[in-house]
């Protein structure tokens, strides 16, 4: 290592196992000037450099969340860019994509700029997803080109799907020339109308109006047909049913340019959790059956589903302290995603593929893999952890424990469905552009 480079080292992550495509390799990681300078078995620590102990830990690329609701502007009582980014950092994330269902929604350059301004200096980088339609009202296209010029690469009306097939087709056609990706929250509004949980044995027993799996699958099927028609790229948000996973599997086999994500809660929880009518278990898409959970996990394992995405959806306590049918859907996810993925997927896939599902692949879908040189632009995410790469890193301790205490989460809200639970594995450090933003599970920003 040349002396010149060595003098720039400001941070050494010592004693961990670096997660790479070829498996784990015991190595120290030297960081300076926001980039990884060296990955080697034993690196001397220059005077003044910070040392992060990573003994027994995995050192992987910082995680990337394709699906975060930051609630700002408009619902600051539930979350802000600052608190959401802090929760992200504590969860091992270095980049999150902010969903556009804010108030007002992200359908204009002004709101995009506001969020990017708020995100300056946050504990994680924030990319902004724009709305497909004006006001997310599903009737007219939002200014996709204007937002694309500001660096927006992902567009969705998340919270609802674009119901009008002709409008969705037009959006796909229009997006093609912009080099952006549309993402769909697949839910047929007529089939889902009034529903508050998965329609099935539990909804029938509990007397809660249900949302049939067909409400999701009908739109997945329609949109696959539209991708076939337009040749445009489409990302499927939070797949939750066995039928949806199978539809996407066949679309990929056909060679269509589709990608998909799944949320940790759809890998772990079922509609049986609603038995006590606790609105913390209300989420959209709803918690489904054991078979659906198994299909989502199988889809993550066989490559049908490309990314684990949190659908982190904070709601203020008073909003959730109402009857089940009246509560808004959504649950916190940023600080529990990696331990859950490690628990469910780790034994089947190993660390390399778990990190791929949570970092490299989502980074590719959101086009965050290379640096955006524009003012306020982001650094590169998704790894690999090697010399020359941006120093966005997640240090995860598989021997640690994540105990979920709603009052101690960084989010402004407490609507975690995992209160009181303990998961094996814990995020220990997070490094953002070379700066440690989380040290020993304590946020530094």
């Amino acid at each position: 290592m040349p002396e010149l480079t060595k003098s720039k080292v400001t941070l050494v992550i010592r004693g961990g196992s670096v997660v790479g495509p070829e498996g784990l390799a015991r190595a120290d990681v030297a960081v300076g000037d926001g980039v990884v300078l060296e990955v080697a078995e034993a690196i001397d620590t220059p005077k003044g450099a910070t040392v992060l102990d990573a003994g027994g830990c995995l050192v992987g690329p910082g995680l990337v969340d394709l699906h975060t609701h930051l609630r700002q502007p408009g619902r600051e009582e539930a979350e802000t860019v600052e608190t959401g980014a802090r929760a992200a950092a504590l969860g091992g994330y270095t980049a999150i994509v902010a969903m556009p269902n804010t108030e007002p929604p992200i359908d204009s350059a002004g709101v995009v700029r506001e969020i990017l301004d708020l995100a300056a200096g946050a504990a994680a980088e924030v990319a902004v997803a724009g709305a497909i339609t004006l006001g997310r009202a599903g009737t007219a296209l939002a200014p996709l080109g204007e937002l694309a010029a500001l660096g927006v690469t992902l567009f969705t009306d998340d919270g609802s799907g674009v119901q009008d097939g002709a409008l969705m087709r037009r959006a796909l056609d229009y997006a093609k020339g912009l080099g952006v990706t549309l993402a769909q929250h697949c839910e047929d509004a007529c089939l889902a109308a009034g529903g508050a949980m998965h329609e099935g044995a539990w909804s029938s027993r509990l007397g809660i109006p249900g949302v049939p799996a067909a409400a999701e699958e009908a739109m997945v099927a329609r949109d696959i047909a539209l991708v076939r028609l337009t040749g445009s790229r489409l990302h499927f948000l939070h797949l939750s049913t066995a039928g949806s996973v199978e539809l996407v599997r066949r679309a990929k086999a056909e060679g269509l340019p589709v990608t998909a994500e799944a949320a940790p809660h759809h890998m772990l929880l079922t509609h049986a959790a609603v038995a006590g009518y606790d609105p913390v278990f209300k989420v959209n898409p709803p918690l489904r059956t054991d078979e659906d959970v198994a299909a989502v996990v199988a889809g993550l394992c066989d490559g049908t589903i490309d990314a684990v995405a949190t659908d982190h959806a904070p709601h203020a306590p008073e909003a959730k302290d109402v009857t089940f049918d009246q509560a808004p859907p959504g649950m916190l996810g940023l600080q529990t995603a990696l331990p859950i993925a490690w628990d469910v997927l780790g034994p089947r896939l190993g660390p390399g593929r778990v990190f791929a599902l949570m970092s490299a692949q989502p980074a590719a879908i959101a086009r965050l893999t290379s640096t955006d040189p524009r003012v306020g632009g982001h650094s590169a995410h998704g790894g690999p952890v090697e010399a020359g790469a941006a120093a966005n890193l997640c240090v995860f301790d598989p021997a640690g424990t994540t105990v979920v205490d709603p009052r101690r989460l960084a989010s402004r809200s407490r609507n975690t469905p995992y209160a009181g639970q303990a998961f094996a594995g814990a995020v220990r450090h997070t490094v953002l552009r070379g700066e440690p933003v989380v040290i020993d599970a304590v946020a530094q920003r």
Partner: protein
Amino acid sequence: MNGPHLLSVADLGRDGIAEVLRVAEAFAEVERRSIPKVPTLRGKVVATLFFEESTRTRLSFETAAKRLSADVLSLAVASSSVKKGESLRDTVETVEAMGIDAVIIRHSSAGAPHQVARWVERAHVVNAGDGWHEHPTQALLDCFTVRQVLAERKGASPEELGIGCFDGLRVLIVGDIRHSRVARSEMLAYTALGARVTLAAPGSLLPPSLEGWPVEVANDFDEALADADVVSLLRLQAERGSGSFVPSLREYTAGWGLTARRMARLRDDAIVTHPGPMVRGVEIASDVADLPRTVVTQQVANGVAVRMAILFLLLGGEAPGVSEVPAVA
């Protein structure tokens, strides 16, 4: 009873239902006295919180509480702070802070009583109907009424019949089962007591899934009628939009109404129940509603005794005055 609340018939189980029916018989005797009142719950305060319209259930609970000498507070939602935006939780906590012993709640949201039960500190919660979910006291009074009729016919007392009279009893529940809390509670109660429950409804008014329910669905309504010991008719809940689940009321009545023609298919000893309010001419023909085998007014009368039993079992415990309840077997 198991536990401090009555949220679902499932909270009771077979033995719990038997106990309620037994205690209700004792209170039915009280009701036949010239002064139908006992001091059992003197000093206790019972609040009725009805967030949804009701005539008979509310009156029935309030009458039951008064006959047990409890003080009754009745929250009229239309003129309460709920209209000012107060949350259900704050309303319940406010009411409990006034020293309420029992909260009787009806709400249009399924599960509302379960949440109220989590929020209260010491009050007992009774579900008086929650959304499409359950209406436990209605199902209990239906069972009580059926047993009463069976006992009268045998010239025996209901206590002598015990709950054995439900073994193998063929119960046919007809109508808007999908949106009916009465149907869900009846399914739980009758099946817990050993009855064989069959459902008859147009496909659009059946629950989306019957997985886990020990019930059958009738292929042919007319055939099922001929086989039934008890026919439980439900109201088509037009005010909840159930009307759009069938092409027209006329078609519903033709297919699923208990018309005079269908009545002829019933066995002579079959009992017809209806939780009320009846919509004559839709699910039941007026002539049929007025036949002696249609026990609707008897159900209403028994509602008070059954609700007295529920309040007594939840609130009475070892409290003073228990010994004054006569002849609890």
